């Protein structure tokens, strides 16, 4: 019985908690990608760099607040700075749309042309971020670090296995839940949200019924800015900020969006968790858990790790390809434009 509890704690500590936090971050990022795809109709390859931009601005405001002596008590100060980060990011995205994307949208350019244009935006944002904050790791989490610390838990419970729960992990999940709830309330209940969905379903019909396309596009960019900045800040609080890591996050975010079905918000959330959990499960060394669960005679000799941790990105794409093979529009039936 004790073995079973130990195994459960190990599972919680090494898989469920980290994967849930990572999944929530990916889900928010994938939501942004999927909204761009569904409403603006292209895959934005600058998405990861936009996320880096939003995080960079938030870090800037965090430092500003700290300089003024303002903190958020036990919570990270970055949460206070987040709204400012979102506003600046939204302005940046609207500027990008105005100078770059609008031209192609008005000409009804093919999605593949828009995607290629987004490569140019990717290069430029890459530069902007490196100019603004450099290429090094930046840690900006402050406040209470642990809600449950490993040692206290062990002392309190008397178990062999320790459980630790970091503040940032809880904040990630709570913030993500609030953001998603707000998004769905907006999309399903408000007039503007409904017009966004109508525009995504059938652009021509939406235009006929008097929906203002410029407004739809503007609102979409603002929502995307909010989602990506939040995702980026949560990821940075949980781990750390690094320009190149954020650029690489583009891959799992796209994978999550595609697995769930591009253009489908519910799918993006499911996709985020699927990708996160499979990355963690496949690269975790199961020896510990199995040793608790199996009789001594059957205890595994090796690490029982399916793949090395360096295969993380490979895992998300293997899943992506399997899904595309068997269900090309994703699990939740996205668009197949």
């Amino acid at each position, binding site marked *: 019985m004790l073995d079973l509890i130990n195994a459960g704690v190990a599972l919680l500590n090494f898989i469920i908690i980290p994967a849930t936090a990572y999944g929530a971050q990916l889900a928010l990022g994938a939501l942004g990608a999927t909204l761009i795809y569904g409403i603006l109709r292209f895959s934005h390859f600058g998405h990861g760099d936009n996320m880096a931009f939003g995080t960079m601005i938030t870090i800037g405001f965090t430092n500003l607040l700290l300089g003024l002596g303002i903190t958020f008590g036990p919570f990270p100060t970055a949460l206070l700075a987040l709204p400012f980060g979102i506003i600046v990011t939204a302005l940046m995205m609207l500027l990008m749309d105005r100078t770059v994307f609008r031209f192609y949208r008005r000409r009804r350019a093919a999605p593949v042309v828009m995607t*290629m244009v987004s490569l*140019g935006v990717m290069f430029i944002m890459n530069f902007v971020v490196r100019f603004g904050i450099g290429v090094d790791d930046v840690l900006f989490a402050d406040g209470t670090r642990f809600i449950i610390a490993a040692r206290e838990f062990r002392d309190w419970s008397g178990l062999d296995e320790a459980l630790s729960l970091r503040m940032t992990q809880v904040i990630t999940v709570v913030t993500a839940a609030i953001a998603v709830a707000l998004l769905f309330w907006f999309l399903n209940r408000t007039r503007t949200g409904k017009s966004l969905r109508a525009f995504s379903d059938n652009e021509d019909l939406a235009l006929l019924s008097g929906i203002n396309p410029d407004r739809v596009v503007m609102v979409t960019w603002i929502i995307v800015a909010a989602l990506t900045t939040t995702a980026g800040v949560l990821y940075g609080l949980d781990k750390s900020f690094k320009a190149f890591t954020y650029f690489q996050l583009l891959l799992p975010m796209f994978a999550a969006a595609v697995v769930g079905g591009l253009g489908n918000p519910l799918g993006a959330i499911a996709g985020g968790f699927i990708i996160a959990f499979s990355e963690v499960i496949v690269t975790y060394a199961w020896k510990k858990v199995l040793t608790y669960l199996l009789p001594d005679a059957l205890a595994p000799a090796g690490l029982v790790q399916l793949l090395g941790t360096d295969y993380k990105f490979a895992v998300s794409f293997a899943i992506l390809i399997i899904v595309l093979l068997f269900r090309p529009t994703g699990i939740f039936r996205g668009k197949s434009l």
Partner: protein
Amino acid sequence: MSTHVQTTGNQSLRTLLLFLGMALLLVWTGWAYNANLALIILNMGLISAVMALGVNLQWGYAGLFNIGVMGFVALGGLGAVLTAMPPTIDAWQAGGLRIVIGLFIGGATIVIAVMTYQRLPTGPRRGLITTAIVLVGYALFRFVYVPGTQAVEAVNPSSTGYLGGLGLPVVLSWPVGALMAAAVAWVIGKITLGLRSDYLAIATLGIAEIILAVMKNEDWLSRGVKNVNGIPRPVPYELDLQNSPEFVAAAANLGMNAVTASTVFVRLNYSLMFAAVVIVLLVLAQLALNSPWGRMMRAIRDNENAAGAMGKDVKKRHLQIFVIGSGLCGLAGAMMATMDGQLVMSSYQPLRFTFLIWVMVIVGGSGNNFGAVLGGMLVWWLWVMVEPISQQLVGYITAAMPEGWLRGRLTDVAPHTRLFLMGLLLLLVLRFSPRGLLPEK
């Protein structure tokens, strides 16, 4: 008819002038900086031109959006290692057989699983049986394969720790690298070419990452991130030249010191080899473009449905051109590893080896082979030269500036200005001249 002749005449003139301008740019670089730098840029520019030709085949001829270029280039580099490096006999004895058998089991598992899946009737039973086959096969594969890799990697890990290559002349690796990339492209194409353009892009981007992940982690194959150094060269070594009295005398005749002369001589050798490859490829690509096959490819690109209705096998043609184009990227990768004399896994980054190649193709003019070559050379020149030029500029700007955040950022930023410039270039070309410097006829 007459207007047609005239436009092609103008086009040829334009091509000639632009290539002349490119040559002048390189000569200027040699004059203003040094001859070695100009030759380094020329050589890598020629290699980039090969990659650009490959991408242009896929995008310009067939409209395939492949952003997995990096993966194929890396495979070509692996081809150079596997062809030219001497075999590690001890490693082969330690675990070579186990690895080979393990890989065979892995391959057989996939084949059996796919066949079972295709034979059995639809239903939950099919999924269960296929999954069971995959799981059992995987366990068996790991059981045989992992001890083999560990044994191989334990053999003198600081200098070898991998199976090595075949010890053949390195130039042979060029076709080998191309074939390896083409073979992988065939498998990938089979899986992904049914997808829509955006999905194909995302899938190829991911597959390039998978190829990289495998090459970084399977140390027994490529030494992973420990790098392979000292790939044998097809050209003489500088030190040998400096020790040869005839060479020193010849250099003195030209009024150069032996050290400079030897590096220039070695690089010139590479330039000649690479230029020969580019010219052959260019001729072949032009012949293909103007053949009935080329017309068919463009017809498919412009309207898949119409071409399909005319009885063209769209999927098969797409697969064909995907394989050929990726093969060219593999060829370029092998050439690059030959020139560098090493395989450094951490240097393979998507910005440099995938997206930059796309800038080359778009700027040069997609659908035009000369455009791809020109774009390859020109964009590569920019990529290299922007850094020293912007460093000078920043030096002028910050000279009179007080210490502070902005000055610190400006002095840090010179190496990154190339990113900004590439993005701007891509956006400007796409917006104002979407057909590129040398438009398709």
